[in-house]
């Protein structure tokens, strides 16, 4: 069954990858959007998959803290589903961007140009929260797997669970704030965070029912939780109806009415019914996000359908791929758990890491704050809190792993990781060319040689803002920012020569910006020839 589903996932990935290509090459026009609906199906899928991710954490971390018995039987499946679902979820907002290569603009990290992300925007909070959530989820599952061999890691797992507990509620709160802070009446309401968290929990429980069924197992408690969650959601749907007059029959039917089948023992003991209910719950949660985000009726394009293949295919192949991998090395891992351990960290360690996390968060704050004083202190918390968690989680994880893994391996791997991460941070610090990925497609060289008009346009769009339309210099701009530019004379052009001037256009000089990547070499040459022409006209 597991292998079959893995293959199904791989097969679904074929149309999924086609969708990805289509979406990246055409851009947002490839799925259903218009000039009044800017968020479409990728955002629906993002909220859906990130919701699925949360239930995994809920079922393993939060139930571990609450010392619920059945946690042990489902925790690894739940954690694996979290990792796979976050991976799927994080793809959608990236594709959604108008210019995908500029995604790093959303990272609130220091950069060379002192341009910072807007800390008032929920998307920044989103980015940080989800990144940290993914990191700590990975730490958590690795700790879990290692703790089967080394019982001393159980205490690390517990601490990580404590870190994940608020974080998981936090992440979906932030996702709900993406909607709740807007001016759209249908998206407003103080109840949105709880509503979203409940929705996430509900869909995640349904997913776990399915995943356990794949393993030919069943946990009755989860079915009961599913019913409870459906009633709570039903209350919210009624609340929405009275508040905003919104009522979606299909959502309530799939999400509430069908789930009630689980009350009847004859029905719930049948595998088909249980699977049907879990799929109905997933469908209803998808529909709920869809009717929330896409209120108008737009005609779907192939890419809109393709997201299903991409999401489900990637999830199945990642989840069952990892599952098979883990099973290969440790076949019984999904059915057993390490014995109890009451070991705890010494107070010194706890306080030390807490203090370190505070110092880390404050350092980040201090490095950014003076540059962006207009942002109220309140808006920093959504960025500082996940960073605080990341530092604490990373410290505990490193500490735990250090105690069980051979020292040489530990330093080798962590050294490599530091190198890679350092490189990535360095790249973000330096930033890229803002025209990255956008080739210069303004004028082809053939047209330049035949007709003078296109190179004139190129000059007008690239050069005239400083050098002026006729090469006389744009006083408005230069006056404020740069020293006087050189007079455009034939004499001066001849003294420089065409080749070296072409290099100046491409590589820049003193106050002249480099245009490499924005104009091709032949275009640069055409521009220089155009300069000759301008100089002739002048004389």
């Amino acid at each position, binding site marked *: 069954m597991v292998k079959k589903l893995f293959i199904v996932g791989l097969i679904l990935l074929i149309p999924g990858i086609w969708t990805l290509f289509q979406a990246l090459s055409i*851009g947002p026009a490839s799925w259903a959007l218009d000039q*009044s609906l800017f968020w479409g199906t990728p955002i629906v899928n993002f909220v859906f998959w990130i919701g699925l991710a949360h239930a995994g954490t809920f079922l393993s971390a939060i139930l571990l803290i609450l010392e619920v018995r059945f946690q042990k039987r489902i925790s690894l499946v739940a954690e694996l589903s979290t990792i796979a679902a976050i991976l799927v979820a994080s793809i959608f907002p990236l594709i959604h961007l108008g210019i995908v290569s500029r995604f790093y603009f959303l990272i609130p990290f220091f950069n060379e140009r002192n341009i910072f992300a807007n800390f008032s925007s929920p*998307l920044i909070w989103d980015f940080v929260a989800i990144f940290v959530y993914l990191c700590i989820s990975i730490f958590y599952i690795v700790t879990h797997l290692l703790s089967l061999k080394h019982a001393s890691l159980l205490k690390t797992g517990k601490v990580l669970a404590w870190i994940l507990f608020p974080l998981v509620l936090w992440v979906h709160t932030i996702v709900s704030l993406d909607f709740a802070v807007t001016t759209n009446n249908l998206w407003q309401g103080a109840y949105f965070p709880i509503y979203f968290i409940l929705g996430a929990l509900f869909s995640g429980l349904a997913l776990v029912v399915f995943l356990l069924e794949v393993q030919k197992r069943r946990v009755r408690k989860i079915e009961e939780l599913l019913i409870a969650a459906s009633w709570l959601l039903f209350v919210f749907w009624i609340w929405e109806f009275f508040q905003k007059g919104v009522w979606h029959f299909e959502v309530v039917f799939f999400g509430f009415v069908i789930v009630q089948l689980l009350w009847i023992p004859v029905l719930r003991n049948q595998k088909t019914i249980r699977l049907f209910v879990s799929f109905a719950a997933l469908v209803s949660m998808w529909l709920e996000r869809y009717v929330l985000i896409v209120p108008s009726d737009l005609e779907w394009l192939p890419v809109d359908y393709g997201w299903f293949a991409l999401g489900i295919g990637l999830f199945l192949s990642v989840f069952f791929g990892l599952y098979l991998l883990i099973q290969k090395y440790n076949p019984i891992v999904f059915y057993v758990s390490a014995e109890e351990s009451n070991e705890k960290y010494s107070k010194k360690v706890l306080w030390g890491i807490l203090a370190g996390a505070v110092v880390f968060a404050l350092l980040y704050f201090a490095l950014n704050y003076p540059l962006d004083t207009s942002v109220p202190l309140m808006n920093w918390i959504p960025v500082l809190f996940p960073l605080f968690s990341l530092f604490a989680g990373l410290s505990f994880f490193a500490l735990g792993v250090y105690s069980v893994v051979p020292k040489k391996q530990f330093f080798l791997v962590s050294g490599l990781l530091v190198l890679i991460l350092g490189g990535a941070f360095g790249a973000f610090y330096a930033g890229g060319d803002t025209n990255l990925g956008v080739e210069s497609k303004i004028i082809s060289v053939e047209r330049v040689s035949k007709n003078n008009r296109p190179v004139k346009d190129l000059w007008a769009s690239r050069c005239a803002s400083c050098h002026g339309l006729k090469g006389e210099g744009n006083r408005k701009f230069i006056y404020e920012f740069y020293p006087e530019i050189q007079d455009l004379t034939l004499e001066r052009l001849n003294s420089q020569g065409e080749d070296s001037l072409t290099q100046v256009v491409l590589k820049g000089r003193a106050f002249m910006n480099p245009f490499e990547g924005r104009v091709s070499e032949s275009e640069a040459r055409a521009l220089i020839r155009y300069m000759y022409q301008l100089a002739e006209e002048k004389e």
Partner: protein
Amino acid sequence: MLISKRTFIKSFGALLGGLLLFGCRKQGEKSLSRVRPVSIPDIKKQIKEAMKNQKPLDSLVAIPVPSSLKAFPNATNRFGMAIDLDLCDGCGECVLACNLENNIPLVNEYQASKNNYMHWIELRDQIPVTCFHCGDAPCEKVCPTGAAVHSPDGVSAMVYARCAGTRFCGVNCPIKIRKFNYVDALDEGLQFISNPEVPVREQGVIEKCSLCLHRIQNARLKAKTIGKEFLGENVTTACAEACPKGAILFGNWLDPNSLLYKKARGRGVYTLSSIAPFDPSVVYFKGVR
């Protein structure tokens, strides 16, 4: 199983590789053949089509005359416009003038069929609607990269080079007047470059009315050169210039000598009900107070 594992992996790999190759194929030639010159009649045609299917308009509500901004209490300028609804007859000349001034691209047939025009000024129920340059703009609050920012002059500006295209601003705009560049106009030959002072926007960024920022900057430079404080004299927007009835006024809400300020005296000042909470700089004049 019908096929062996090895066969499956082989065929799967081959299919994936084939798709990859297909995705990486060269597409350069296609774009050139599509390039065609854009003419003013093309633009006029799209404006006419847009005017045929107008979106509905919110109700108008009375607001006080705009005063200094909360964010910049000491600023001497707050540029804005007023559209006199008693004079306006919805002819659409302002839309054409705006298109030519700001190099607004045409849209392809598919987008046109969905009524997704790029026009910065739209007619809704025969009333021109453009960005209201809200003093407390909702779009600027949610922009993650800071591409939508307010200038101390009261202009809600767009930094195109900073825009990553999350479209959060468009979502948060109550009147949905922000326009997203769905098509690559340069590539598809839909770009009409008539004004070199305004940059051409690339595919994937949001754009909207800039209150003819380039004109304001030109006038500011002139004023600076002769050493005068710039209060928005000798400058007007393209739409105001083009209006045959003189229904659109550009000016400085904080300068008592500005024509806009003077004309607002005694007039009823209105805005759309959904925009009213955000302190707009562009307002409607209607009747007397």
